[in-house]
């Protein structure tokens, strides 16, 4: 197992994580509340997300980007640290199962209605487990290879829709009022900008940590901009009314592309981009959970946990919600607060740790980034 990645790979992982699953969801989640002002909501979400992540990365920097599981123990002591670590592991697995569920919902509702959700759930979990088996280095490389293509596909297919772009769909600006706009921003702040704090377990494996914070934030900014662009174009092309009523507006958007009657059904490509982004997200969640379990168990590797973790994600992804409507409703209402509370708890504990100058005696403790 080789976990080292370089900074370029980290940036691409951040971009994939941000864009990945939000790519298809963001337009609906924002436009549902803020209508044609969805893109303003998205901008606000990106700004809030950046502010939250700047704070987060500053604190991690004080702790020299050690593994988040070690930091919590150092900052909060053995008991608080362990509880927090279990919490982080649960959050990671819980998120992974939501992402898996999201994928199977999408596949069943939009792509292949006649097939079983289990097929896609099992396949994506198998891929994630397979990748995690080889360590972080593996997903770093896979992602490094595919993300540029994915971004290219994404931008090309987005560009092809712009001929149907109507500015009138976006006017008038600020029509919905600040409350609705902030409500639109609320959902997309948690998903994906607070979720990305899970990368705290990954940062420690980056080889050269100079300018790490800048790269991390640049990745978030790029991913966020791509999301803003997506929302902007989705609303501009389809109109807020349509976007509100579709679960995956970006996908529907691509359905309209038709170039000289040969490139029909280009939306399959965006489906692939999305699946890959989702895979990266699941792998990162799974990796975080496994690393946490490894830390708790003080075992030299995390291979014994791969199987139960995979099973747990599969089970969770199916029993958390009975249907996809409940799922969407839940994510829209509670997701940001749910993740924000983890963020807040970690922030408080780590902040108190800094005040008690716990971050200074990190050097004496053993370095765990080599495993």
């Amino acid at each position: 197992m080789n976990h080292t990645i370089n900074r370029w790979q980290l940036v691409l992982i951040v971009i994939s994580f941000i864009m990945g699953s939000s790519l298809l969801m963001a337009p609906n989640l924002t436009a549902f509340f803020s209508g044609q002002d969805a893109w303003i909501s998205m901008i606000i979400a990106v700004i809030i997300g950046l502010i939250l992540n700047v704070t987060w990365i500053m604190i991690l920097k004080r702790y020299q980007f050690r593994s988040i599981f070690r930091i919590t123990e150092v900052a909060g002591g053995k008991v608080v640290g362990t509880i927090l670590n279990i919490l982080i592991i649960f959050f990671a697995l819980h998120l992974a199962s939501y992402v898996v569920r999201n994928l199977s919902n999408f596949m069943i509702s939009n792509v292949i209605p006649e097939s079983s959700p289990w097929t896609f759930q099992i396949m994506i979990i198998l891929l994630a487990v397979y990748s995690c088996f080889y360590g972080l280095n593996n997903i770093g490389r896979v992602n490094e290879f595919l993300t540029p293509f994915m971004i290219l596909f994404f931008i090309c297919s987005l560009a092809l829709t712009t001929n149907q772009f109507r500015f009138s769909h976006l006017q008038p600006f600020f029509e919905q009022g600040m409350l609705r706009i902030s409500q639109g921003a609320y959902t997309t702040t948690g998903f994906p900008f607070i979720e990305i704090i899970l990368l705290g377990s990954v940062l420690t494996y980056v080889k050269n940590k100079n300018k790490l914070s800048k790269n991390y934030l640049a990745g978030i900014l790029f991913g966020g901009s791509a999301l803003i662009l997506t929302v902007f174009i989705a609303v501009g092309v389809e109109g807020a009314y349509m976007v509100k009523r579709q679960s995956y507006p970006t996908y529907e958007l691509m359905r309209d592309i038709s170039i000289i009657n040969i490139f029909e059904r280009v939306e399959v490509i965006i489906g692939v981009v999305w699946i890959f982004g989702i895979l990266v997200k699941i792998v990162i969640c799974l990796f975080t959970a496994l690393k946490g379990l490894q830390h708790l168990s003080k075992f030299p590797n995390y291979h014994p946990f791969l199987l139960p973790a995979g099973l747990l994600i599969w089970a969770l992804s199916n029993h958390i919600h009975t249907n996809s409507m409940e799922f969407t409703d839940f994510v829209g209402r509670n997701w940001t607060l749910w993740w924000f509370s983890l963020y807040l708890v970690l922030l408080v504990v780590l902040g108190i740790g800094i005040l008690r100058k716990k971050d200074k005696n990190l050097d004496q403790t053993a370095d765990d980034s080599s495993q």
Partner: protein
Amino acid sequence: MSQQFFKRKRHDSTSSTENYDHLHVSSDLKTNVKEIKNILGESIDVKIVEFLEMPIPFAICYIEGLINKQQLELSIIEPIKRTQLENKKLQPKDLIHQTEVSAMISPCPHFDLIITPVLKGQVIIFVDGMSEAYSIPLETWETRGVEEPEAQTMVRGPREGFIETLQTNTTLLRRRISNPTLRFKPFEVGKITKTTILVSYLESQVDQEVLQEVIKRVSNLNTDKIFESGMLEELIDENGYSPFPTFQSTERPDVAAAALSEGNVVIMFEGTPFVLITPTTFISFFQAAEDYYHHFDLSSFIRVIRVISFMISLALPAAYIAVTTFHQELIPTNLLVSLAAQREGVPFPAFVEALVMETIFEILREAGIRMPRPIGSAVSIVGAIVIGESAVAAGLVSPAIVIVVSLTAISSFVSPYYGFSGAARLLRFVLMILAATTGIFGMIFFMIGLLIHLCSLTSMGKPYFSPLAPFQSGKQKDSLFRLPLWWTQTKLHRKWVKKL
């Protein structure tokens, strides 16, 4: 972790050959002759010639066919006899200096040092009254001449190929690289076969880490028998279960020389024209030596064609199955109508159709390799009929699948390395099953899984998918495209051009 796998693969050899370390050469000639007859047995090619009537009796032992008999007669037996008869006072220990050979004569105090040299083609002399024998290298045996390589052909480039004899092969390399730092390091592998292998590298270029790894693996090899570089490849490979080869095997000296000059290690093997190049990358299996001999634009184009044909040979039948079974909407309507019209009356689903045709093709292909040459035309005629018109006419398959299978088959021959196209051949069937069950998204999952697998592979500890992931911008000049040589190789080029 690779270390663990590596260890597991080495099996304990059950039968170990006898050791003659304890058997010392006796000063009595007859005892020695008896002993050697005992060890080598009653084989007709083992020749032991005794000269007992001489003032100092001696005996010569060799294996017929492995040595130069004429030279033995002229420069060993004759001079020894002559000096003995001329000079009666000659001491037994001076006798050996009378031979007229230029090779190094080495003393052998015990039988272990006798048996192996004899089997490798040296001549052993026992002298009465000496408790040492002497081995004189006189190896020559029948070899094939240097010919054009059969498995890796090209339009432009040298016509020489490696042969089965190491000595000739090292010469072929030396002639291409006149560099004092070229090294050939010998190892002996196989408890029974005691095969010689050479680890060759350029001391000035080689990555020491890789070299040490190769040496470690080769010298720790614990096996009874080994006959071809493919066996060695499998035994020292760290990713044994992967269908992708992590050694590049070539029979072209120019490829091996290029690999050496790039700092790779070449493992040569007695008894096979194929040498192994390591470490290697995924992309190097799309690079033929000829790429560098043609103009860069053509070469880059051909490389892209190779990648495309690899994808075709891997995924085309699967894509056909997925599209015709699950995603008819992806095909333009006109084509869909004609495809549907063709498939009318075909009793099987597309998957069975493709599976049957692919299997038939694989059978024909294997038959084409194994059959005796005179029957060749019969097989090709029958094959063409089976796989082509008749199957369609009989209503067993649709015409479209014939096109798909033949295109797949042709594409699989494009790869410059046979072992590599084997990976596509095997994975094609897995992919077909996935396509038949889960459609195009199953294929996408498989492709991502394949990518994860490729990114996890290493070749001698170096990443296999290397210049692509991890991305190395410096090496892109010669990975998927071959950019002009003056970009990569020499900075003098431009100066030189200006002067003219």
